[in-house]
């Protein structure tokens, strides 16, 4: 049954899958069709996973089965037990896990390929971008979750005057690590440095943001995870990842600005708080 493992078949199934994502998302624009739309998108996801498992040479079935089983067992009760009022932080948590997954995949690949040796340059750059943004999204989302869940105080927490320099230093460090890795044969510590610097950025950008602005921030982090997934798709030459990731990246950005508008807040004002541009004063303008 070699035709079953043909990449043309798998890529065709991916086309059907992302058509389902897009159609589902279109249906989700209206309250009446939205429930069905969500399940259409979910069916697309099921198809995409099934198609991926058909790829020739797939192995490690036990570990794959284990991962999917544990993930399913954790997520079903989590999704059904969460209170309606606690939904935003649950979305933040799920979003963070998606970003974390990308960071972990990129790290494992880095370790497995001796620092992306023999990988084409565009794949290395895309993977590093995905790892960086994924790590920011993971740690940023955890802070958003912790704040809304009241594990952390909802009030803005800043490093004071150090906020801006630390932010800048971390971004410079992450980009520097990325450049060193791209030149090839870098030691494993560079990748850890990149992920850690991105983690610090994610933490200190979200910590100063007040609870009232959090939904907008979660939406922004959601868009970032989408972009990160699209970049990973470029690195792995996987169309389903590119399309689904980029649609989320773009629609998430639009959604972020719509949400900010609906709350009478401006995105630059919200994010400026995270970069040390003065404290944000939620709802004062609204």
């Amino acid at each position: 049954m070699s035709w079953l493992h043909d990449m043309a078949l798998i890529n065709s199934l991916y086309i059907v899958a992302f058509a389902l994502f897009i159609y589902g998302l279109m249906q989700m624009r209206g309250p009446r069709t939205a429930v069905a739309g969500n399940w259409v998108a979910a069916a697309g996801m099921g198809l995409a996973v099934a198609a991926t498992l058909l790829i020739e040479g797939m192995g490690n079935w036990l570990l794959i089965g284990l991962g999917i089983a544990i993930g399913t067992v954790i997520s079903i009760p989590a999704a059904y037990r969460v209170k309606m009022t606690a939904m935003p932080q649950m979305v933040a948590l799920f979003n963070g896990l998606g970003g974390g997954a990308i960071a972990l995949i990129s790290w494992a690949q880095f370790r497995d390929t001796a620092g992306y040796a023999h990988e084409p340059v565009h794949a290395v750059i895309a993977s590093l971008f995905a790892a960086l943004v994924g790590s920011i999204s993971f740690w940023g989302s955890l802070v958003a979750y912790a704040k809304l869940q009241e594990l952390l105080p909802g009030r803005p927490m800043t490093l004071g005057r150090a906020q801006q320099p630390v932010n800048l230093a971390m971004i410079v460090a992450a980009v520097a690590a990325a450049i060193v890795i791209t030149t090839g044969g870098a030691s494993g510590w560079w990748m850890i440095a990149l992920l850690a610097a991105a983690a610090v950025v994610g933490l200190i950008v979200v910590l100063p943001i007040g609870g009232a602005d959090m939904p907008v921030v979660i939406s922004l982090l959601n868009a970032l995870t989408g972009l990160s997934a699209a970049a990973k798709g470029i690195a792995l030459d996987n169309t389903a990842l590119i399309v689904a990731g980029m649609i989320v990246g773009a629609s998430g950005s639009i959604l972020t600005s719509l949400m900010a508008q609906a709350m009478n807040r401006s995105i630059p004002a919200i994010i400026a708080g995270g970069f040390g541009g003065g404290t944000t004063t939620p709802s004062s303008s609204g």
Partner: protein
Amino acid sequence: MDPGLVQNLAVLVLAGFLGFVVISKVPNTLHTPLMSGTNAIHGVVVLAALVVLGLGVEGVFNKVLLVVAIIFGTINVVGGFLVTDRMLAMFKHKPAGGADKEADR
């Protein structure tokens, strides 16, 4: 430049515009469910974990990283779609007043 890369970039750009168009006009009440729905869709990252682990990596630590990535991705997908469904269920029953029970859970 790699022709496959150029093709992928074309797909990337088109998907970006599509994303903008699809979401540009939505009622305010649907913002949160849409955020949740798109959140579930980017759970597609689980495919990346499946490919990398499935096509083989060396070393126990790498395998552990990838299994954790699959767990994270699966939670993102399954949890994401279920949570979105629960949010949307509130819209479905609102005229009949059935949303109260759901809201109390």
